[in-house]
């Protein structure tokens, strides 16, 4: 038999994914694949205006259509529900958010009426017959305009400002007074985009009158958060809400905030007598009104540098645009501060951070959430300062990076970067792309008048949040720490079954969880069944369970590991009793009758079926002192966090810090202004790797999202708040034709903060956005242009280079040199 002497480690291997078989055969179970008896279909009537008062709603024509069961309006749900929880204190906390518009609409696409019918086609037809009279109001789509409060979205709040706070660390004024040079940057802007999962939101809800419970089958990606909001909103005990998810066709954070639609579907089911309601979002509904990523403007940035180009202080004013309703916000107002100095050593900083509502789609935690905006800002600062001081971009970074020997590194606001080696990543990336050769090629090309730029982006992917940071935005918020649950059991016939509270969307949790348990029990991963997909009834979730924020390798697998260890201890104890030996005489392995436990001294063994049999169906043989052995072990892992200092805004906000370093070489065509990637490298460090193939896949995926966002994907609004990119033909998600070949490199600096040395990863820190901006900037410095926006396509490059409308260095950047 195999024994612990010839133990094979599964963690660290590129094990093929357990998820693959069903997905390849077209047998995945996505939410829209579910069909139920008596099912009805819901279609939303949505606002064509960005900002308007609702004068009247007439639903009678729609209701008269044969096959229409009912309609639902905001006025009708108002007495049945509470406004959704607002995370913000006042003024943002005064905002009243309902899932159907009550008296006003505040963004184009906001749901106004729900039509419920026997078929999707009838619901579509009837929705056309709903008459809504609007009184149009001026829309405000620009964040800085919104903060002037000329047009207020939420009268009850009295202002468009949701939140404001100053994050100040070190001695900023002293740093500026001692600086050898000070660089001023007037304005930088991080654009609005969405990772647009290919599967849109889907909700099936049933408010069952028989047991007064609400059942959901959906693809929400943070259900434990959703049920907290839904329970309070619907006045329903949280235990009466059951949520199940199955295969999910991508989320990237965007499906976290589908709880308003979940609420409407439940209320519609209640009105329809408990029949299940299905709502399948269309692509244009998704693009206009599910969630977008946060847009951010950086104003009046001042950077203090010493004589060697080492940054000593950064002061700036950041304005975040969260769209019409805060929802998950204003958490983004603090989440960026997980990475206050980015990968750099400066100690002094003052960021005045404000968030505002505008008449645009509400934001949600889009891949790279809130940190990527800040990290992009820092990378722009570094490149602009390097240029102004005449220091090469790579050299500038080396002078400013946190040094490998400084880890664990405490940032100015008390975050602890667990491990990392940024200079080494730079070295690996340069080697892979052929940095020196490209420098020669660039010089030769520039002589011919070609616009070629080389750019470096260094970024962080902070994972496993301390939810105590919510108390920095709202001292009354009842959240802190982080935890995840898992259950590991031997079922009646000895099957190893693992259940976790995550709802993966392609991250391979079934595979990595099996790898971890296989190592604990010393069996083959094929012998382990992993139940993923959220189910409140599995009782393995905590209030933080879901799949978001780069954490499964740490929080999820720590819970799985803990549950497996508990099971192992029980199995050992039981086997020692049965085999009449001591526990330390027991070894785990696989024998002729499958996985078994064996007494080394006697050679006697008992297989998993034998152990499970005793506990589950043959328990009279168990002595009383063994009655606590259940072989059904639940474990809750808790992150070792403390509540941060709310006044000083100080404390450890995240457990692990994966890092990425990308380099791009880009050419801007002189005639068409189309930017074309000539070469690209991505180097990743996420500590000890559980499954290298899955990690590599996540890196490629995050790279595609970033390249798409940098060059092709933008949520564009016109001046009155019409969404101009509501279809994929307008939004143009990156395709196989646009995606360059990515050279992949990898280093490992194990995390001291997780049991396995792994770090959460997957979001990728938006490295390509920083990198492409850097490469374009390198090409354009000589043209007097500053890359002041995270989105750059042929049109914006033309406007900068020919129109001279945007990005003019003379207007944007000034340098003060001190003798």
């Amino acid at each position: 038999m195999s024994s612990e002497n010839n133990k094979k480690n599964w963690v660290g291997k590129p094990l093929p994914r357990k998820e693959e078989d069903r997905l390849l055969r077209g047998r995945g179970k996505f939410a829209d694949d579910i069909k139920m008896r008596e099912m009805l279909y819901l279609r939303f009537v949505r606002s064509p205006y960005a900002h308007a008062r609702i004068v009247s709603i007439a639903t009678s024509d729609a209701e008269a259509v044969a096959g229409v069961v009912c309609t639902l309006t905001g006025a009708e749900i108002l007495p049945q529900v509470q406004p959704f929880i607002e995370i913000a204190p006042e003024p943002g906390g005064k905002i009243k958010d309902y899932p159907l518009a009550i008296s006003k609409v505040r963004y184009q696409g906001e749901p106004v009426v729900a039509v419920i019918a026997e078929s999707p086609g009838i619901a579509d037809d009837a929705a056309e017959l709903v008459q809504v009279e609007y009184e149009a109001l001026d829309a405000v789509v620009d964040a800085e305009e919104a903060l002037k409060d000329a047009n207020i979205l939420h009268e009850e709040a009295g202002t468009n400002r949701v939140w404001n706070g100053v994050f100040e660390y070190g001695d900023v004024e002293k740093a500026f007074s001692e600086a050898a040079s000070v660089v001023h940057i007037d304005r930088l802007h991080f654009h609005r985009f969405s990772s647009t999962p290919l599967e849109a939101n889907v909700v099936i809800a049933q408010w069952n009158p028989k047991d007064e419970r609400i059942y959901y089958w959906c693809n929400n990606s943070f259900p434990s958060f959703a049920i907290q909001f839904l329970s309070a909103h619907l006045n329903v005990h949280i235990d009466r809400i059951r949520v199940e998810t199955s295969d999910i066709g991508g989320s990237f954070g965007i499906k976290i905030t589908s709880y308003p639609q979940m609420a409407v579907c439940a209320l519609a089911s209640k009105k329809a007598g408990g029949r299940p309601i299905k709502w399948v979002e269309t692509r244009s509904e998704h693009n206009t009104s599910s969630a977008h990523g946060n847009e951010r403007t950086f104003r009046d940035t001042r950077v203090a540098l010493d004589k060697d180009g080492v940054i000593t202080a950064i002061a700036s004013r950041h304005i975040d645009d969260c769209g019409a309703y805060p929802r998950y916000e204003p958490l983004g107002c603090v989440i960026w501060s997980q990475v206050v100095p980015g990968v750099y050593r400066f100690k002094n900083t003052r960021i005045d951070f404000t968030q505002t509502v505008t008449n645009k789609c509400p934001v949600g935690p889009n891949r790279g959430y809130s940190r990527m905006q800040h990290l992009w800002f820092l990378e722009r600062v570094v490149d602009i300062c390097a240029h102004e001081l005449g220091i090469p971009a790579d050299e500038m970074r080396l002078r400013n990076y946190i040094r490998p020997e400084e880890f664990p590194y405490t940032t100015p606001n008390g975050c602890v970067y667990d491990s990392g080696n940024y200079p080494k990543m730079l070295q690996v990336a340069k080697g892979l792309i052929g940095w020196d050769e490209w420098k020669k090629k660039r010089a030769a090309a520039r002589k011919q008048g070609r616009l070629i730029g080389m750019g470096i982006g260094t970024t962080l992917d902070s994972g496993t949040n301390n939810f105590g940071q919510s108390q920095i935005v709202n001292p009354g918020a009842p959240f802190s720490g982080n935890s995840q649950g898992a259950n590991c059991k031997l079922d009646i016939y000895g099957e190893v079954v693992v259940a976790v509270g995550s709802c993966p969307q392609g991250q391979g949790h079934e595979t990595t969880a099996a790898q971890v348990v296989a190592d604990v029990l010393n069996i083959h991963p094929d012998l382990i069944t992993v139940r993923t997909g959220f189910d409140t009834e599995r009782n393995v979730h905590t209030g933080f369970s879901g799949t978001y924020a780069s954490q499964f390798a740490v929080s999820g697998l720590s819970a799985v590991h803990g549950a497996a260890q508990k099971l192992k201890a029980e199995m050992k104890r039981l086997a020692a009793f049965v085999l009449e030996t001591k526990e330390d005489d027991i070894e785990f392995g696989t024998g002729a009758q499958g996985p078994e436990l064996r007494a080394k001294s006697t050679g006697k063994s008992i297989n998993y079926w034998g152990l499970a049999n005793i506990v589950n169906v043959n328990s009279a043989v168990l002595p009383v002192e063994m009655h606590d052995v259940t072989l059904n072990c639940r474990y809750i892992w808790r992150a070792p966090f403390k509540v941060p200092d709310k006044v000083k805004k100080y404390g450890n906000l995240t457990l692990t810090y994966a890092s990425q370093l990308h380099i791009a070489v880009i050419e801007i065509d002189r005639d068409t202004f189309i930017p074309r990637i000539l070469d690209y490298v991505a180097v990743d460090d996420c500590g000890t790797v559980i499954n290298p193939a899955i990690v590599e896949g996540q890196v490629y995926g995050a790279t595609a999202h970033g390249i798409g966002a940098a060059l092709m994907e933008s949520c564009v609004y016109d001046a009155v708040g019409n969404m101009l990119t509501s279809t994929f033909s307008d939004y143009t998600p990156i395709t196989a034709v646009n995606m360059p070949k990515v050279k992949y490199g990898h280093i490992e600096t194990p995390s001291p903060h997780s049991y396995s040395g792994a770090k959460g990863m997957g979001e990728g820190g938006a490295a390509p956005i920083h990198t492409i901006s850097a490469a374009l900037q390198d090409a354009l410095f000589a043209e007097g242009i500053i890359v002041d926006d995270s989105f750059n396509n042929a049109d914006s490059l033309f406007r900068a280079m020919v129109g001279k409308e945007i990005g003019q260095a003379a207007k944007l950047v000034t340098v003060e040199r001190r003798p």
Partner: protein
Amino acid sequence: MPKKVVKRKRAPKPKPAPEAAITAVPISVKVNGKTHSLTVEPRTLLVELIREKLDLTGTHVGCDTTYCGACTVLMNGAAVKSCTMFAVQADGAELLTVEGLEKDGQLHPIQKAFGDSYGLQCGYCTPGLMLSAFQLLSHNRQPSEKDIRKAIAGNTCRCTGYQNIFKAIQLAAQNVKGV
């Protein structure tokens, strides 16, 4: 302050009749080797026929507008986007969906290659991508990377960054015997 009042009252439209009353059109399609004779509304999309009437839910909908290719199926050997075709247009046609790729429980070499190359993550786009790959390999057994990129230009994948999909299709090209 309100600037203008816009009335959005529409002229009354003829009320749609319930589904059953709309003239149902009889069609016959052969899907994965099995012939189905049934009636559909004229407006029924091909993807609705496949998913809702035939319960073949491996074919997905991603964009509704022919961009993303999650709904790709083969019709008489050609890759088509079933979200932008009416079911009646498939009358008399032979369709292949993802469910028809495996044979006697064994994965088709294209399916196997996608799995072996980690060419999928969430798996939502995968059926459409494999059928586009099927079409490519049916007339080009030694595709260059450029050929592959072109062949799947109409299939959006939001998870993989396409890198492993290129590898998967190259691997499939080596292993496919007769597509």
